């Protein structure tokens, strides 16, 4: 129910947009999106609305932190 899918913005005007979710295109409303977006950005899509702008830098940061943590484990010989 609370499922959200990251979709890539491929078309938009002031209120509506078309996103590509894993190869399927869907029309979504932007009336609830607090952030500025441009074509090519990723948004979290829920029940026909874009509810958040997805942040690729944050995704990268999270993954890097996990990789660093894994390397540290290797060095410490925990594994």
């Amino acid at each position, binding site marked *: *129910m609370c499922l959200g899918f990251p979709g890539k913005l491929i078309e938009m005007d002031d209120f509506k947009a078309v996103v590509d979710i894993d190869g399927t295109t869907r029309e979504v409303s932007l009336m609830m999106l607090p952030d500025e977006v441009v074509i090519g950005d990723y948004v979290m899509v829920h029940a026909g609305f874009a509810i958040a702008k997805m*942040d690729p830098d944050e*995704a990268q940061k999270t993954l890097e932190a996990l990789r660093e943590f894994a390397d540290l484990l290797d060095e410490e010989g925990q594994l």
Partner: protein
Amino acid sequence: MKFVKDFRDRELAEKLLSAINHEAEPSRTYRFMEVCGSHTMAVSRFGLRSLLPKNIELVSGPGCPVCVTPQWEIDAIFEIASRDDVTIVTFGDMIRVPGSRGESLQKLRAEGADIRIIFSPLDTLKIAEETGKDTVFIGIGFETTAPTSAALAKMAKELGRTNVFIAPFCKTVPEVMDVLLSDETLEIDGFLCPGHVSVVTGLDIYKPVTAKKRSAVVTGFEPLDILSSVLEMVRQHNKGEYEVKNFYTRAVKNEGNVKAQALLKEVFYQADTDWRGLGRIPKSGLRFRDEYKFVDALARFGIAETGVTDLKGCKCGDVLKGKMKPSACPMFDNGCTPQNPYGPCMVSSEGSCSAYYKYER
């Protein structure tokens, strides 16, 4: 897709698992609740429960909106659907939920009732315009979905529509978490907090959790999200220091979605409401403010709240509180299956009973 695939990296997942194994103290037990049904599904689907050390238990919580909808609200839908000249508009999850007399929207539709499955609540506007009939959207969901009901109400008002109605069955998460926190028989040490509810609400709603010395980690739905959050909760529990953490920063801002919050405030007020298995919880439901009362389906069709929350014989209530594993219900795979569900927790794709049936039987 970088927001999904990278977070399924097997090697990193294995490292996180060994770190969890290393840090979980054998003399202690850890009980963490995944509040959200989508987390339950992810945990089951990726087989995470069986990979964790024995003394870490992941219990499912009340976070499947279809499952927590009390029986009287489900029956109210059938009461409305039984009228002539009404169109019911709903998300697909509701279509097979059984009523007290075994009826379902699917069956009613086969018998000729006008029942439409939609992707966006706003589709209701178009359907109402086309048919000219009273068109009722079944507004279930938590903070993630409630703003979409609010958006429909707002558009109906702006467009001056008089045949669009909404069943106001949305519920809010902090209030139910508070009930679970206060239940001393539950012994939960931490919560995997619902990622997409948090997209809307932000992090502040979880402060009462850490104030009560339990951890609260907001996280996503991929294995790395869940495992890193479990590790964080193990660490917090070991240290006895609790802090709200955001491990889903690619989607969740600390302050949440302020536009959606404003929309919720404009359209709804918080009222006491009934939950399956949990009973009536103060201020945990969203009802229409006076300016939006004109869309309220309960008022339009004169539906009385009977307060009946559960189906006889179904243990969804205990399952939703994390007190009973689905497989411990006498009807599990014995009169209740996804093909032939008796209770809502077996119907919904994110219901705990259906997750266990599919992946952990």
